[in-house]
C-alpha cells in the first residue's frame, strides 16, 4: 500500500492533520506509539466521561470530538507503533507488534509533541519523584492521584495539575513555586499581546485563586531545592527567603515548563534554531510548517510550544501544505482553507511571549547547585563529573558525550541535553545557541536487533 502522507503522532496536531489530509482525498498513514489516540494533552480521551470532565476540565474534554472525527476517517491508523527513524528521503522506520517496517511517502508530518524540561536537583532520580505531567497522565489514564504530594516548580501546567488534584478532592502537602519575581518586569512588556486573550489570563488567575482558597500551603521566594531521602523520596528541602525548610512527602512532582521533543526532528537531519525566549531548540519551518528538508513538515508543540489548540491549527496548516505540495489541491484552495487555521494559530500564540517570559525557569533551577546532583540520569553522571570533563578543554556537547558518555543512554539526551548545553555555555563563556546540542541519531527509540534484522521494506508496488 502506498501513502501520500505519513503522520507521526496522534495528538492534537497529528489528528487534525489526518482529518484535513483525508478530507481532500489523500491516502494517510497515521502512526502513534500509544494504544489510543490523544497524545499527551488528550491522553485516554476516548474513555473519558463525566467524572473525568469534572476533574480534568473542558480543555481536556475538547479532545473527544477530535478523536471521534479521526476514528471515522478512511485512513490507516496504527496505534502501538514506535517510530525509530525518519530519513532525509522521507523513509519512516517504525515497529509494531514485533515487526519493523520501512515505509516511504512524498510527505511526512512530524507531530511528536513536547516533553517536560529537565529539572535537575539533588535527589531528582529517587523513586517517588516524578514530573507533574506524569501526575496528570496517571489521573487521565488510571484515575490515580498521590495523596499529600508536593508540587514544585513553575509554569501553567504545574498549576493546572494542582488544580485538577484539588478538583478530585486530593490533598496537596505544598505547592513550591519557583517562578522568578525577576521575570515580572520583562513579562509586562508582552502584556499588551497577552491581553487579547484576557480569557486565558483570567483562567490562570482562577486556578491560582481556587488553589489559594483551598488552604493548600504555597511557598514562594524559592532559591533552591533538594529532594530529601537516600533510597527513595522522603520530601523536599526548600530554600525560601534565605532559610531551608523541609516538607515531608513520599511524592514530589516537579515541573518547569515543556520543550519540543526534538529527537526525531534532529535525527531526521532537519535544521533547528535556538529559541532564547522558550529556551529550547525548534525545527526551522516555513509558513506551511515545512521544514528544511523538502517534503517533511513539523506541526504542533514539536515545532515550538503553543498548546493544544495551536497544535490543531498547525496540523491543518501542515496538511494543507503537504496537499498543496503533492498537487492534491490547488494553491488557491489551499490558501483559502488555511485562513481560519491561521487566525486560530495567531490567537493562540499571542499570549506565548508573556507566558514564556513570566514563567521562564531561572538559571538556578536549570542547572543544579549541588555537585552530587545527577545531570545525566541514564549514565548516572553528576554535576561534578560533567564539570571535570568540560575542564579538559571541551567546547561542545558531542565532545563531552564522547568523553564521559553523557547522553549515550536510552533516553538519548532528552533529560540531560539542555542542562549539559547550559553547563558548557557557562563554563566556556559562550551562548547556548553557540554551544549546540547532541548530534542525535536513529533509532530514536530503542529497537530490538531482531526487528531491525527482519526489517520489512515497503516498496511502491
Amino acid at each position, binding site marked *: 500500500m502506498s501513502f501520500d502522507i505519513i503522520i507521526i503522532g496522534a495528538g492534537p496536531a497529528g489528528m487534525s492533520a489526518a482529518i484535513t489530509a483525508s478530507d481532500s482525498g489523500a491516502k494517510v498513514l497515521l502512526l502513534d*506509539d500509544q*494504544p489510543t489516540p490523544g497524545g*499527551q494533552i488528550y491522553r485516554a480521551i476516548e*474513555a473519558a*466521561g463525566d*467524572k*473525568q470532565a469534572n*476533574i480534568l476540565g473542558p480543555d481536556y474534554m475538547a479532545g473527544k470530538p477530535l478523536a471521534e472525527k479521526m476514528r471515522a476517517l478512511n485512513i490507516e491508523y496504527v496505534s502501538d507503533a514506535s517510530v525509530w527513524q525518519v530519513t532525509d528521503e522521507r523513509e519512516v522506520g517504525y515497529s509494531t*507488534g*514485533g515487526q519493523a517496517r520501512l515505509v516511504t511517502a512524498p510527505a511526512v508530518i512530524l507531530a511528536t509533541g513536547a*516533553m*517536560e524540561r529537565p529539572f535537575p536537583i539533588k535527589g531528582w*532520580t*529517587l*523513586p*517517588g*519523584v*516524578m*514530573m507533574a*505531567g*506524569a501526575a496528570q*497522565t*496517571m*489521573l487521565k*489514564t*488510571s*484515575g*490515580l*492521584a*498521590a*495523596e499529600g504530594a508536593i508540587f514544585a516548580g513553575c509554569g501553567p501546567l504545574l498549576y493546572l495539575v494542582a488544580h485538577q488534584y484539588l478538583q*478530585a*478532592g*486530593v490533598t496537596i502537602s505544598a505547592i513550591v513555586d519557583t517562578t522568578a519575581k525577576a521575570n515580572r518586569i520583562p513579562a509586562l512588556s508582552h502584556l499588551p499581546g497577552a491581553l487579547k486573550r484576557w480569557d486565558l489570563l483570567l483562567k490562570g488567575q482562577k486556578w491560582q485563586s481556587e488553589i489559594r482558597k483551598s488552604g493548600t500551603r504555597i511557598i514562594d521566594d524559592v532559591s533552591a531545592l533538594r529532594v530529601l531521602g537516600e*533510597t*527513595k523520596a522522603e520530601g523536599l528541602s526548600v530554600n525560601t527567603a534565605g532559610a531551608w525548610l523541609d516538607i515531608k512527602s*513520599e511524592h514530589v512532582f516537579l515541573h518547569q515548563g515543556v520543550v519540543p*521533543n526534538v529527537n526525531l526532528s534532529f535525527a531526521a537531519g532537519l535544521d533547528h534554531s535556538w529559541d532564547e525566549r522558550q529556551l529550547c531548540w525548534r525545527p526551522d519551518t516555513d509558513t506551511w510548517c515545512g521544514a528544511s528538508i523538502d517534503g517533511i513538515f513539523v506541526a504542533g508543540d514539536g515545532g515550538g510550544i503553543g498548546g493544544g489548540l495551536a497544535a490543531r491549527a498547525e496540523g491543518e496548516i501542515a496538511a494543507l501544505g503537504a496537499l498543496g505540495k503533492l498537487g492534491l489541491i490547488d494553491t488557491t484552495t489551499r490558501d483559502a482553507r488555511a485562513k481560519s487555521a491561521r487566525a486560530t494559530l495567531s490567537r493562540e500564540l499571542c499570549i506565548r511571549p508573556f507566558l514564556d517570559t513570566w514563567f521562564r525557569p531561572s538559571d538556578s533551577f536549570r542547572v543544579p547547585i549541588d555537585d552530587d546532583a545527577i545531570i545525566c*540520569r*541514564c*549514565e*548516572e553522571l553528576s554535576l561534578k563529573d560533567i564539570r571535570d570533563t568540560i575542564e579538559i578543554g571541551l567546547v561542545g556537547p558531542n565532545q563531552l558525550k564522547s568523553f564521559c558518555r553523557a547522553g549515550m*543512554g*536510552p*533516553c538519548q539526551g*532528552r*533529560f540531560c541535553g539542555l542542562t549539559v548545553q547550559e553547563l558548557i555555555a557557562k563554563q566556556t563563556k559562550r551562548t547556548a545557541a553557540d554551544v549546540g546540542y547532541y548530534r542525535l541519531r536513529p533509532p530514536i*527509540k*530503542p529497537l*530490538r536487533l531482531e526487528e531491525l534484522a527482519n526489517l520489512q521494506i515497503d516498496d511502491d508496488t
Partner: protein
Amino acid sequence: MFKRVIDETASDVVFDFEGTEVTARNGESVAAALLGAGVLSFRQTPVKDRARGPFCMMGVCFDCLMVIDGQPNRQACQVRAASGMKVARQIGAAELTLDQADPA
C-alpha cells in the same frame, strides 16, 4: 500512596510482581498499576546500583524499565498490564538468554 479517585472502570487484570498478585484496571499500564499498588522502585541501575522508579510516564525517560514476561528493559509505562503477566524489577544490565518470549 496513589489512590483511585476515578473508580468506574473494571479492574479485571491480575498479574504477578515478584510473587505478589497485583490487580490492574483494564487498559492501564504496568507502571500505573504498580504505583497504584504502592510500588515505587522498579529497577536498580546498571552503573551505580541505585533504585529508580517511573519518572515521566510518557516513555521518554527510560527509568521505569522492568523485566516483563522474561523480556528485560521494557518500559513499564508503555506496556499494558495483562492477566498472567510476570513482572519483575530490572536489576542491573539486561541479560541475554536463549528463552525469551516474543514481545506482543
